[in-house]
């Protein structure tokens, strides 16, 4: 009988887990910062905030690359499929909202529907930001839903 031992985690996997934990911790930390202080800091030192956000974006992309290298082909395929179908369906639903909005606004309470985004509307470009958040939500929900279904069906 031939026995095997579990292989130690590879370097990309260690980078992946470390990066994911760091991103999660950063997200929690930003959420705990006082919103008014954050808004004041962004007004007083915009370039520091923009630079910090760019660094965070680059870090998130690097962690994503390490994550994709660290998982196996079935897990990678689940992400590809979920991004294509989940993302496409999410975008198509947004397109439906865009086209059908005048009619929808006659039959649904538009203010209630957009209430979670309306707090952005006081900001400069707030309505655009509301659209950005709605797009991210639609893509992420579509992606996540598709990923869960694919993964449960395959494993």
């Amino acid at each position, binding site marked *: *009988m*031939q*026995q*095997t*031992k*579990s*292989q130690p985690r590879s370097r990309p996997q260690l980078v992946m887990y470390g990066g994911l934990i760091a991103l999660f911790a950063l997200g929690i930390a930003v959420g705990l910062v006082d919103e008014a202080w954050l808004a004041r800091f962004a007004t007083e030192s915009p370039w520091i905030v923009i630079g910090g956000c760019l660094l965070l974006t680059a870090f998130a992309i690097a962690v994503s690359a390490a994550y994709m290298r660290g*998982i*196996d*082909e*079935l*897990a990678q*395929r689940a992400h590809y499929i979920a991004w294509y179908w989940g993302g496409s369906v999410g975008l198509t639903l947004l397109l439906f909202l865009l086209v059908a909005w005048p009619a929808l606004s006659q039959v649904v309470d538009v203010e209630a529907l957009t209430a979670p985004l309306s707090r952005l509307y006081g900001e400069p470009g707030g309505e655009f930001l509301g659209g950005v958040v709605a797009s991210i939500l639609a893509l992420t929900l579509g992606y996540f839903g598709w990923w869960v279904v694919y993964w449960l*069906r*395959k*494993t």
Partner: protein
Amino acid sequence: MKNKLRVLRAERAWSQADLADHLGVSRQTINAIEVGKYDPSLPLAFKIARLFAMSIEQIFQDEDVARAAE
């Protein structure tokens, strides 16, 4: 696609996790291949064939061909 992975693994008394470790993939991937829910990539199929010292065709069989042979 049909395959003999479960049989080959059983002959060696390997668990799915053992085989996964040999191939550098997850246990879920081995399970999905064994039950025919996932067809491996060509590089992984070659890796499996090398591990069992067989050709890919000896391990994996196209279902249409298998049905025609029956």
